[in-house]
């Protein structure tokens, strides 16, 4: 029972000025089952954001076919993309037009990301870590049938990133949302995903598809994550060790 089905035969960006035409995605096919969390792991610049833009329908210029589940879509972008001139509460209300119990849902969502009191604060006043949590709350508050996350914890300090990953792990387990998370960070993929799609450098192809044999509790232990990452991704040993240092 596939909730999301992706076939990208070719995605290229046309030549602009001196820059030549660029083939970014090539022959990429995969499915995500309902309730499953899949991570797309690949080096920076390989086409991960491009892939999410295709799936979200923001970019329709490609050869292939993408089928999304019925229901609402949610996207946590690489940058939080909040409305700085609106309060946190109004930022969430912005995506809840016509929802009768909006206020209650906003309260619940802010509680889930452990920011129960920031409702009346302007989004411009948030730290990056808080803004990322609000972006996550905005995504969850719509009760999406498909959640897309684009390197949601990039450029945070390590302890904050770890805390937010734990939070996301819990929320994904609780809501069983069908989720596609894109990252260049192997440990993040191992920790959060049921399955990892390993991409090559651009033009991105599917290099491997790996099931992650970890239980919910095991995913909360850094040592277990580290061990599985090394076992699953032997050729990535160096970068992992380097990041752990």
């Amino acid at each position, binding site marked *: 029972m596939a909730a999301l089905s992706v076939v990208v035969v070719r995605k290229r960006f046309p030549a602009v000025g001196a820059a030549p035409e660029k083939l970014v995605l090539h022959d990429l096919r995969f499915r995500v089952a309902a309730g499953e969390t899949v991570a797309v792991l690949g080096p920076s610049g390989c086409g991960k954001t491009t892939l999410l833009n295709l799936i979200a329908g*923001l970019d329709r210029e490609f050869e292939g076919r993408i089928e999304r589940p019925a229901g609402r879509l949610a996207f946590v972008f690489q940058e939080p993309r909040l409305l700085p001139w609106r309060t946190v509460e109004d930022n969430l209300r912005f995506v809840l037009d016509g929802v009768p119990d909006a206020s209650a849902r906003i309260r619940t969502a802010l509680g889930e990301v*452990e920011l129960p009191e*920031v409702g009346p604060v302007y989004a411009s006043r948030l730290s990056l870590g*808080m803004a990322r949590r609000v972006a996550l709350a905005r995504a969850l508050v719509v009760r999406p049938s498909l959640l897309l996350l684009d390197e949601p914890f990039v450029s945070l300090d390590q302890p904050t990133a770890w805390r937010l990953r734990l939070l996301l792990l819990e929320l994904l387990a609780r809501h069983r949302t069908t989720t596609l998370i894109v990252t260049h960070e192997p440990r993040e993929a191992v920790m959060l995903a049921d399955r990892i799609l390993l991409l090559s450098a651009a033009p991105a192809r599917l290099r491997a598809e790996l099931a992650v044999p970890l239980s919910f509790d095991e995913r909360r232990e850094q040592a277990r994550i580290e061990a599985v990452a090394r076992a699953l991704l032997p050729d990535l040993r160096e970068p992992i060790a380097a990041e752990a240092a």
Partner: protein
Amino acid sequence: MGLSGPLSATELAAAASSAAAARSRRFEPRRLLAPLSVLVLAGLWAATAWLLDSPRLFPSPALVLEAILREFRAGELLIHLGWTLMRVAVAFLLAMAIGAAIGIAMGRMALIDDFGRPWLLFFLNLPALVTIVLCYIWLGLGEVAAVVAVAINKIPNVAVTLREGAKALDQALFEMAQVFAVPKRLVLEHIVLPQLAPYFLAAARSGLALVWKIVLVVELLGRPNGVGFQIHSAFQLFDVATVLAYALAFMAVVQLIEWAGFQPLARRLERWRR
């Protein structure tokens, strides 16, 4: 970032509001400079008038004040201020509405931008006097011609400002709204207008300053009332005190609009910034 999010958020809000309160409460000697400079200007004016000793051609501040009071008691001042203010208001609103529509269309659509640019250049460089004369010739010496002439002078400036605003709209936020299927009216209210507001305000402020000066010229050339008409009449009598009386009175009105209208509005619009 503190590890306990809720706490740091409330701390932040508290810090922001107490800082604002402290700023408004604390006495700053620098604030006295502006009133002081007004007094110095008036003093220089009075001293020059005393030295020249020619009250008809260079009246003292006291004489001008007297002229203001005389015109006010005669009921003339308010009537003419009223006429001018009305023309300013109509021309201003017309120019803001049409200029904003043109500017936003140019800022959002490259074809309209390319097509409209030469027109904009033409009208930006067209002398105000030419527009006024042509409007009076083609539309007749009436109220419509007067207001249209003023508006035409201001529209290109508004269009240029709002075009910049429309070009600077953040594409990433539109994408966010699209992904979350947010209806157009909410996108307009929460994404487009907040970003255009500073440009509207800038256009409005510079617009008011320009429009009222042109309205005086329009009145001088072809209206039987208004501040410009009164200045013209006083000019023919070489009555400098009355010229200055009307000029100062209207400048005061414009300054009042700035203080009571634009400044509070600007503060409101800026509230969300750090």
